[in-house]
């Protein structure tokens, strides 16, 4: 079963710091991915401004014809975007798990500079593992 397409990590100022495809998907080139990340960042802010109800913190789930996008925003403003097949179950739990992996293998890495591009082998490995475990 293939259901998780892509993960993007966006920092608190709207820059793309990580992107990873888990299956072969239609190519989004790096420039487009960077622009999509910052577009998402601003649309996220506008959606909470336009909310008809007070206390909105932004989009969590976007549904389109061929995919669903789940967004998890941490308290510090980092956003994890997961592009999945429509009707994939337990995606919020997977995002929580990815956040844990990020905290453990990126933020605790002494060579990692916050808000910069993520290049951590251990993060790659554990991310792969978490997604594979979710797919079975």
């Amino acid at each position, binding site marked *: 079963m293939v259901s998780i397409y892509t993960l993007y990590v966006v920092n608190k100022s709207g820059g793309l710091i990580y992107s990873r495809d888990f299956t072969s998907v*239609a190519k989004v080139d790096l420039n487009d991915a960077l622009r999509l990340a910052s577009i998402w960042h601003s*649309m996220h802010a506008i959606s909470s401004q336009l909310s*008809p*109800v007070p206390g*909105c913190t932004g*989009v*969590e789930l976007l549904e*389109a014809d*061929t995919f669903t*996008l789940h967004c998890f925003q941490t308290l510090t403003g980092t956003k994890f975007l997961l592009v999945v097949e429509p009707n994939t179950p337990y995606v919020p739990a997977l995002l929580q798990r990815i956040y844990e992996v990020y905290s453990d293998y990126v933020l605790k890495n002494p060579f990692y500079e916050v808000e910069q591009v993520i290049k951590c082998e251990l993060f790659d490995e554990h991310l792969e593992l978490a997604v594979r475990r979710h797919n079975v």
Partner: protein
Amino acid sequence: MLCYNIYFYDRTGCIFYHEWLRPKPVKQGAGTLEDDQKQMFGLCWTLSNFCAALDPKGTDKPQLGAPRRIGQGCQFRSFTANNYKLHFLETPSGYKVVLNTSQDVGSLQETLAAVYDELLVARCIRSPLYKGPGQPIPNPEGFRGALSQLLRMRGVLPASQSA
């Protein structure tokens, strides 16, 4: 289940807006109603381009930023925020319907298609009093009543909410 507000757009801008319930007034958001409608259009327009560019299954998807024809590529349907849900429908002729409801509502694509078909086409576009794109809907009061009635019949607008 609650309905908050609805926007209708044609190619020139917002042609009809109605709110049943808006706990957060426009003043705390975009400022004026006109700006609110413009921003809502921008949000939906950008998100539909976003979806077309991100589409993981599109083989010949349009380049991000390049002009895109209506209905080309993957379509944006709805999004859910932590306290509301936005439903979006774009027709091939460029009319757009945006409906905000509470989160506990499923897919409303069929309902929005019915709103387009049974209301916009029947009461506005086909009406001899309608003067064309950019002009207000003829008989907005009747339109508003019919809209509330249709949504109530489809079980989207609860009976306890006033028209």
